């Protein structure tokens, strides 16, 4: 009994000190000067622009990585092309790489002084230190999520139904829409939501490739960082609270999707 009380109080203390208190702290920080101040900081052009840019980048990254994630997962799960093992390893690489390194890697290939980046710049397309580069950095760090969710599901389903449909004369496209997609829809949604969550919060890679120019390439997390460094804590707390609330919402959605998926699979 005594050991149980000890165990429980340790668990509560650990959660309290690391999660519950910091989380409430950010809300207290944002509202410590009242709701008006919160609203005032929220409608600052920098804050609004940062949030808008973050949501735009996230939308682009999710759209592109969902499409490519499905394609890559089909290749890896199907095992019917030589080289699926290589794909399998490459997809996991972004997990092992620090975000700052990811940003540096992209600059080394697509920066203004490089072969590819220079060529594109001559044709008036700027990748690095502009929004396309920020999207690329986000694509890099969120690459594994959709693939990792889909591969086990696709393997588990097998392709018996697909082959049956093909034999009966359905086109590849039709088989995908009518059989493969419905089978994997919850896992796809889960992977896409994980991508959203990571894309909203990405900082290191985006910082390196963007240059963090105010009202041009300063996304929400960069705005929080810049405000903290400048000592403008109220602005930092306000935008942080918006970001934290969004992540909390996404976490709830993820939990819901997980339950749906378990029901669908059982």
């Amino acid at each position, binding site marked *: 009994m005594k050991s149980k009380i000890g165990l429980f109080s340790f668990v509560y203390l650990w959660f309290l000190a690391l999660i519950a208190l910091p989380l409430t702290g*950010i809300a207290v920080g944002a509202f410590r000067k009242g709701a008006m101040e919160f609203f005032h900081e929220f409608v600052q052009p920098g804050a609004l622009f940062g949030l808008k840019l973050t949501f735009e980048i996230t939308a682009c990254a999710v759209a592109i990585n969902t499409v490519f994630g499905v394609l890559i997962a089909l290749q890896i799960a199907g095992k019917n092309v030589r080289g699926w093992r290589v794909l399998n390893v490459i997809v996991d690489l972004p997990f092992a*790489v620090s975000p*700052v390194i990811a940003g540096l890697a992209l600059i080394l290939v697509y920066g203004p002084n490089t072969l590819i980046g220079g060529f594109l710049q001559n044709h008036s397309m700027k990748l690095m230190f502009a929004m396309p580069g920020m999207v690329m950095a986000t694509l890099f760090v969120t690459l594994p999520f959709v693939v990792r969710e889909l591969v086990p599901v696709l393997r588990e389903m097998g392709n018996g139904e697909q082959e049956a449909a093909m034999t009966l004369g359905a086109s590849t496209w039709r088989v995908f829409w009518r059989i493969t997609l419905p089978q994997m829809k919850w896992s796809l949604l889960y992977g896409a939501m994980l991508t959203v*969550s990571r894309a909203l919060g990405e900082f*290191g890679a985006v910082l390196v490739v963007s240059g963090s120019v105010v009202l041009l390439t300063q996304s929400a997390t960069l705005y*929080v960082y810049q405000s*903290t460094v400048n000592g403008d804590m109220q602005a930092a707390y306000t935008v942080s609270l918006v970001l934290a609330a969004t992540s909390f919402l996404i976490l709830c959605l993820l939990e819901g999707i997980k339950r749906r998926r378990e029901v669908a699979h059982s």
Partner: protein
Amino acid sequence: MSTELGKKISFAGVSGYLLLLVVLPLGAIFKQAFSAGVWGFIHSVLQPIGVSALVLTIKTSLLAALLNTVAGTVIAFALVRTSIPGKSILNAMVDLPLAIPTTVSGLMLIFLYGPSSPIGSWFARHGVDLIYSPLAIVIALVFVTFPYTIRAVQPLLDGSDRRMEEAALTLGASKLRVLRTIVLPTILPGVISGFALSFSRATAEFGSVVLVSGNLPMHTQVSAVYLYGLLENYNQQGAAAISVVLLGLSFVAVVCQIYLSRQTHISALLRRVQRFPRGEFHEVEDRAV
């Protein structure tokens, strides 16, 4: 025929995407790191500030991973095996550190434990700086690696056979002995992989650490922040060299994890066989396998 062609086009598209997004950029890091020759690479890595940053990174990451491995195992045990009040809420909260942007995490810790907060100022009066110190780095790393061990150990505890423990208890083994000889070997692979994941995530962490550490060179500057500083000063070769070292570090962590979890599997098997050299129990187990 047309499906074959479709498959080939899709494979080519996917390969091209990965080549442009992952392979070329990471390859460029290695090329840039050795652009001044092997000596240039070694020279960049052995800069005193860089070495001290690397040592600090490894120390704080090891400490944070260790803390979280112990605490995570205990928490996983409490969440699976006990009827702790508020279990489902606690369980849902575990993933929060992964969902929250790392800059926000850093800011939260500053607000709560910074010098102007009640908790931080209390500690400061007693001579402990919670923020802008090496301790701050450990706190931030413990926060961002919070879920890994819990999520690695939970399924193993959940799926383990309670009957073995009950049998051992009935036969008179003490609780501690059951924990040591049955529970721990079962969850050890999860504990190890939780540790390795936490460690490699900790060495890569940037967003929260850059805010809470104060970034004093030779004192509270970790490798990722040092690397960012080099980039700001347009020293791409130096930054790439540090990147190669960090990539090597997480590679070593992954290899160690695979090696150790294999070892424990084998040694656990051996121990089980030795304990029941012959007789019924052994056969039953063989059949079950």
